[in-house]
């Protein structure tokens, strides 16, 4: 009999559509740390990142059909969900205040296997390398947008540059990133 750990992500999502909490728990085990990690990085608040993580998994439970395996990996899908919700939160006034609050309440208990840890670390290394190869102005625009939740219009204001310029730099930088990651053998982010 197939073990749950051997089931593909797509099969797990199919099981979630049939109300399998076990399948949702396995998706959480595989990808929860990434969902939480990205939300925490954008929000700089463990408490708010927990809220985002909950939202992402509730949404997967309620709307599993929103994941389309033909358009990318489940990890990629969940990270996009996490980022979108984190950015929504960071743009709200309350959240901006909360970002200043330090919350040290956090205990690590991830059930996360070594193979995937190594894979994630390798990917993080490749991403850091690729970002380092971008022209400074492209890297800065992308980092302000993605990691700090600013719109390109806000990035333009922050950098004192025309909106069109920033829009173009983000696009060129993302295209360059893609080429660099493909060159490095990263074809997706499926763990």
């Amino acid at each position, binding site marked *: 009999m197939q073990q749950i750990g051997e089931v593909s992500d797509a099969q797990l999502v199919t099981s979630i559509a049939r*109300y*399998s*909490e076990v399948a*949702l*728990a396995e998706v*959480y085990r595989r990808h*929860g*740390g*990434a969902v*939480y*990690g*990205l939300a*925490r*990085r954008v929000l700089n608040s*463990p408490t708010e990142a*927990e809220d985002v*993580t*909950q939202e992402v*998994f*509730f949404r997967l*439970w*309620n*709307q599993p*059909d929103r994941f389309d395996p033909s*358009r*990318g990996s489940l*990890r*990629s899908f969940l*990270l*996009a969900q*996490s*980022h979108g919700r984190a*950015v929504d939160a960071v743009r709200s006034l309350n959240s901006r205040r909360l970002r200043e609050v330090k919350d040290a309440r*956090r205990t690590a*208990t*991830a059930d*996360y296997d070594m193979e*995937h840890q190594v894979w*994630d670390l390798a*990917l993080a290394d490749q*991403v850091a390398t690729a*970002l380092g190869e971008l022209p400074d102005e492209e890297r800065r625009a*992308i980092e302000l*947008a*993605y990691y700090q*939740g600013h*719109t*390109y*219009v806000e990035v333009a204001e922050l950098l004192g540059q025309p909106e069109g310029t920033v*829009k*173009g730099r*983000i*696009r060129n930088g*993302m*295209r360059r*990133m*893609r080429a660099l990651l493909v060159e490095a053998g*990263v074809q*997706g*982010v499926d763990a």
Partner: protein
Amino acid sequence: MITHEEANELLASFALDAVEAHEHAQIEAHLAECPRCRAELDAFRDVAAAMGNSVEPLPEGLWETIASRLPERLDAEPPPMPRLVAEERSDGSPTPILGRRATRGPLAVMGAVAVAAAAVAAVLGIGLVQADHQVSQDQALARGGAAGTVVAALTTPGHQVVNLESAHHVRLAQFVIANGRGYVISSRLPALSSDHTYQLWGLIGDRPISLGLLGRSPQQATPFTVASTAAPSRLSVTIEPASGSVVPSGAVVASGTV
């Protein structure tokens, strides 16, 4: 409406969730019709996901919190859909219900709506015929460019977006209302059999006013009219016989506050 070039220029920012709110809706509308941009967006999203792939140890107890709040339905058959008005239709047949996958839990009843429904049937009958006539005209017009119609409404000053959700807060449809005209932005309502239709109701005070038939599988830009009535406080969708009903006779499958 946004051009292909304009949308394409913003795709990288869109993948980073870094476009302005008004642009977001326009790009989504364009994506619905442009496979080339969808493919390019997917590629950008993979890059974004790689950049955001910083796994952290999960906080203790977070999974337990999530699991404890999931709706209970693992092994149970979904409960029968509540009736809105009558237990049986006039022909004695049971009121149609949605399939299991679509309902995912008990559905809401319109409540006070049902009480007042019978009393205003005659008035509503006239309103329904007029509204549906208008719907037919508009549906013909809308076939030319669904996304354009929706974007035009979304960029009209003072427009309202209404999310319609199931009883368990699962979003099933999104509408936009601008200048007394409304349109379906998106719908996840499952297709019905050919002898049934979704019907939209606006709640004015305690009274459900028919705003029109949405068809058996509501499509983007399906229009409805709200101008001839006072502003509804709430929109609800019921399942009705294909010819529509003068008062709601099926269960409310989705509703949302205006």
